[in-house]
């Protein structure tokens, strides 16, 4: 564990923790049909960094969360 902490900065851990609830938020959204997906919400593929997501009221690009 101490090795892990040494290798990863505190900031990265915070980022990871912050991203977690956001990612679970993405998973619960109804998005099976991309044609009817809410364009403001995250889609099924967390890969697209330009995707627009809403987290804690912020309208962000998915890449902003990284």
């Amino acid at each position, binding site marked *: 564990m101490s090795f892990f902490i040494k290798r990863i900065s505190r900031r990265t851990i915070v980022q990871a923790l912050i991203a977690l609830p956001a990612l679970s938020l993405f998973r619960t959204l109804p998005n099976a049909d991309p044609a009817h997906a809410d*364009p*403001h919400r995250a889609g099924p593929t967390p890969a697209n960094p330009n995707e627009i997501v809403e987290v804690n009221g912020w*309208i962000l690009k998915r890449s902003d969360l990284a």
Partner: protein
Amino acid sequence: MIFDSCDAFRAANFAAKVCILGSGPAGTTIARKLGAAGIPVVVLEAGSREFSDESQDFYRGTTVGDFYFDLDVTRLRFMGGSSNHWAGWCRVLDKQDFEPKAWAPDTGWPIRRADIEPFLPEVHDILELPGFRPDVPVSDDIRWVQLIKSPAVRFGEKFADELDKSRNVAVVLNTYATELAGDGKRVTGARLWSNGQDAGAFNADYFIVCTGGLENSRLLLWSNQRSNGGVVPNAAALGRYWMEHPTFEGGNAILADYGEFEVDAVNEAFFSPTPAAMERLQIMNFGIRLIETPYPGVKSLIADLACTAPDMAEWMSAKLSQNLRCAAQLYVAWEQAPLASNRIELSTTDVDHAGVPRIELHWKKSKLEHRTLLEGLRLFGKTLIEKNLGRVRIADWIANGGDYPTNDETAGHHHMGGTRMGTDVTKSVVDANCKVHGMDNLYVGGSSVFCTSGECNPTTTITALACRLGDHLAKVVAV
């Protein structure tokens, strides 16, 4: 000529062809147009030259539904009307505001914007405005729009001299028209109240009601009740479809560069949706107003962002150290969907000193409007991302579907609808020329004739409509 009392006016034996009720922007503009056309016109003004508590008391009323301003605070009852404290923001309704919206019932006007455009040069002179700049598209969804911060012309002050010297216009102060009488075809006279007592009847060939966006409905409802439908024979829509511009702080934006958008003299910028975005999302028109956030506000915004997007927050901090102007509060004002249930009624329990029932205003914001607010902020946020201009945070109460706060701006003091313009007599009160359906000599001026409110402040459009009505009446009366 300006008379300080009804008695002084009667003693002068001025024979008026047209009687205008109210000397606010609408009444004054129409009077000046008719006077210039050589038509003798009298303007009956309930108040005097100055504000007084006694006069203001006639405006008291109650509101049922959503929180709204006290009705004796949201308007002024003396010469010049509410122009005595308006803020002077000017813009004409958008072209698309006149068009029907398929997704919102009872929208669309019987006239188009092109019908009032010929009067805009006159409006610019009256309101002392520079030329309007066309909208600038920022994205497919959002356009920059111009609201001119004008010198806020006080109609009573600006035109007092001209009216006093006019041989065709008589302004009679302290003279309250408590009701009109009518036979279902014509108005046959007005009942007056002056100096705390009944001041008899008054007659003219034509009557133009310009008593403001709440009072026009009140006066006509009461007159109609007293004359058994003889003043507004088709009264199904009378008092109904009342609208405001609800206005709330909708969130914040961080901006890569505040100078990216053109800002006005007070460092503010305005944005509205494109017609395509409104149609796609089936929302109403809205205006987002960017107001620069003071430094402490920017810091707490960055701290909030750091919890969600640390990199972004770091970028923002860097911007803050380079440039203090990098965040804004977003105030949103929007177009209300016209609803018959939003209405002015006469109180059954409370009357003013002259015995006229006070207003009971029924007003509620609809679900479509909440969606307009939320989707509007989303559109703006998406645009800032697409154009790499910044990021938006939507206020919690909006994002979470909470109640409207009661300590926010609430609305614009813009009183619209109640005697709306239209062709369907069951859903409107006046025709495209502002003439009351079925009546030969009764017209209405002011924003009570608006069918929809658009997103912008009403007085520029009120003044344009008044110029148009003045021109029209000059032709009708001259015949």
